[in-house]
């Protein structure tokens, strides 16, 4: 164990003295949690702008605009009623606009159907929000004009233990992502560097074993990632009022994730020619895993084929396991995913140990 600790300290010193290492361990996740927190925390402007041209300008058309505005998801902005709306949209780079035609009130009072027009790009998420708001307002007014009332309502209820925010759902993904980027992205070029600079050979002249060398890296990353997780958790709680819970299983996942991704990085680094190639290989494998593993996007919202891919991404089990324990308190699911992570880690550890050679051929 003395050799493992000595190797851990020597490696740790070098890692922390490399500003890149410290940046990716602490500063980068901190920046991301602050950035994503600012985007999704509900503070500041969260309404989408809806440009409205009211060519009717009657009590009913104004009431409709008011109803749309009351949905609270849009911010009303007026388009002058004497301009060509399509030209105005183009000139002002407007994403979503609504035109209420002249004769809106007269048509309704004549007991005929009148259409308002929503302009926009249906592929944008803001268009869907505006369409829902306009449709909801139209339905409400239709009920009002018909003297009817809706028979089915909806009451929103969160499924997690407490009133969680987006930042809480994001936090576990952020921890998983940090483990991935540090352990995999750092370990792959490190292994390539150790090979190309003949450090492995030099280590081969000592009593340090391959397993001890790997173990020291896993322990180091587990320690660093635990500190990093505590920091981003604290920022999430103190700055954004996050309510996700740090459980013992959270740290078990950090350890298992470090075990898995350090071993994977070691394996990749053993088979790459040089540090540059190793970094490229780590990126090529790590980036798809980052996006498909549920770090930033919910896996359930992905197309079925992508969900299939997500199922074979090791990061998926780390992220979803962390969410299970930190958000939903579902320890059974968390333990299952922890088991999968550990088994995957063992597979990569054995492969890495076999591939890594102190000796030349």
């Amino acid at each position, binding site marked *: 164990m003395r050799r493992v600790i000595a190797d851990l300290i020597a490696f740790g010193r070098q890692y922390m003295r490399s500003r890149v290492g410290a940046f990716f361990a602490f500063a980068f996740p901190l920046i991301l949690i602050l950035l994503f927190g600012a985007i999704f925390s509900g503070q500041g402007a969260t309404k989408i702008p809806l440009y409205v041209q009211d060519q009717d300008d009657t009590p009913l058309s104004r009431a409709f605009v008011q109803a749309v505005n009351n949905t609270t998801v849009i911010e009303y902005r007026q388009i002058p009623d004497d301009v060509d709306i399509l030209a105005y949209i183009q000139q002002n780079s407007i994403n979503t606009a609504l035109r209420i035609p002249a004769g809106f009130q007269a048509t309704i009072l004549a007991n005929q159907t009148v259409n308002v027009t929503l302009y926009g790009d249906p592929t944008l998420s803001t268009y869907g929000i505006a369409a829902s708001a306009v449709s909801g307002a139209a339905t409400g007014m239709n009920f009002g004009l018909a003297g009817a009332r809706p028979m089915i309502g909806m009451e929103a209820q969160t499924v997690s233990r407490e009133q969680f925010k987006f930042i809480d759902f994001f936090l576990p993904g952020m921890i998983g992502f940090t483990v991935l980027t540090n352990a995999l992205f750092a370990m792959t070029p490190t292994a390539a560097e150790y090979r190309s600079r003949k450090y492995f050979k030099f*280590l081969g002249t000592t009593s340090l074993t391959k397993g001890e060398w790997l173990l020291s890296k896993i322990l180091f990353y587990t320690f660093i990632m635990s500190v990093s997780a505590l920091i981003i958790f604290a920022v999430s709680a103190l700055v954004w009022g996050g309510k996700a819970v740090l459980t013992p299983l959270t740290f078990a996942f950090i350890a298992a994730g470090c075990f898995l991704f350090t071993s994977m990085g070691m394996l990749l680094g053993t088979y790459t020619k040089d540090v540059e190639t190793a970094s490229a290989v780590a990126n090529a494998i790590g980036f798809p895993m980052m996006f498909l593993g549920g770090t930033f996007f919910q896996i359930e919202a992905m197309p079925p084929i992508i969900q299939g891919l997500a199922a074979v991404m090791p990061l998926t089990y780390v992220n979803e396991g962390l969410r299970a324990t930190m958000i939903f308190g579902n320890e059974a699911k968390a333990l299952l995913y922890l088991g999968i992570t550990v088994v995957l880690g063992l597979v990569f550890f054995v492969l890495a140990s076999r591939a890594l050679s102190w000796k*030349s051929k």
Partner: protein
Amino acid sequence: MAEAVIEVRALTKHYPNVKAVDGVDFEVEAGQIFSLLGPNGAGKTTTIEILEGLRDPTGGEARLFGTDIRTGYAKIRGRVGVLPQDFEPFDRLRPREAVTYWATLVNRRITKEEVAELLETVGLTARADAYGMHLSGGEKRRLGIAMALVGKADLVFLDEPTTGLDPGARRDLWGLIRALKGAGRTVVLTTHYLDEAEQLADDVAIMYKGKIVTRGSPKQLIDRHGGGTTIVLAGAGEAGCKAVEARGIPCHLEDGDVLVHVADIGQVRAMLAKVAAIDISLTQIYTKRPTLEDVFLRIVGARMEEGELAA
């Protein structure tokens, strides 16, 4: 006769298309500096990496301190120090930290005072707290030697320790290598610098194409293969060469100098008097003893420059 620290018999290392080491035999006595000399690709590094336990031989036998390296390396690992070829220290470790770290890896408990003493031995005291990446080439090799010595090794392998260093740093390192011998250690030195082997080694083995082609002390090799003494008529030129040949004395021209070889050292004085009596224009006249360079040229048939064979 001193105890043999290294015994190598019929050692081979074969790859599909290359016999990197092809039936090598030698032994190294305790307290000696033994040099494996040869061009790049001769098999020097492969041979010593087998002895360092970093490569498995294809065949033959090798023993260190009487222990078979194939089966008993773990027992003797602590007695062997290694400076690998092209040694690079860890970029962001200080020499003081690197030596302490390495001591633990070779299972030695080392005090701060012992670390300081070791750094003093290799002349790195002033640079003990500099990052590895900020050390000069010579300082890096010194650190490598300190790390090789940290386990109190009796046998030290130095694989091309001065390659790429400037002449001053090379000479400084030679002093350190001599000091290792002075402290009773056995040193195995691979090099492609002929002057280095000649200056440092007690015993030299010239390796070429995987084989040891000749072996002995530098003096023995020079006496055996050096081709005798050379009389140099500096600046005598082509006309001088023709004038010497006209007296029935074989000679050849090299860079404007006329060289006359005298195989028997007893004939040097007489030959010197003979050529000095010839009326030719020259800047000076002197004799030159052969060096290992001449030995290498005679044996391999080519000169060696920075490890590569020159035509």
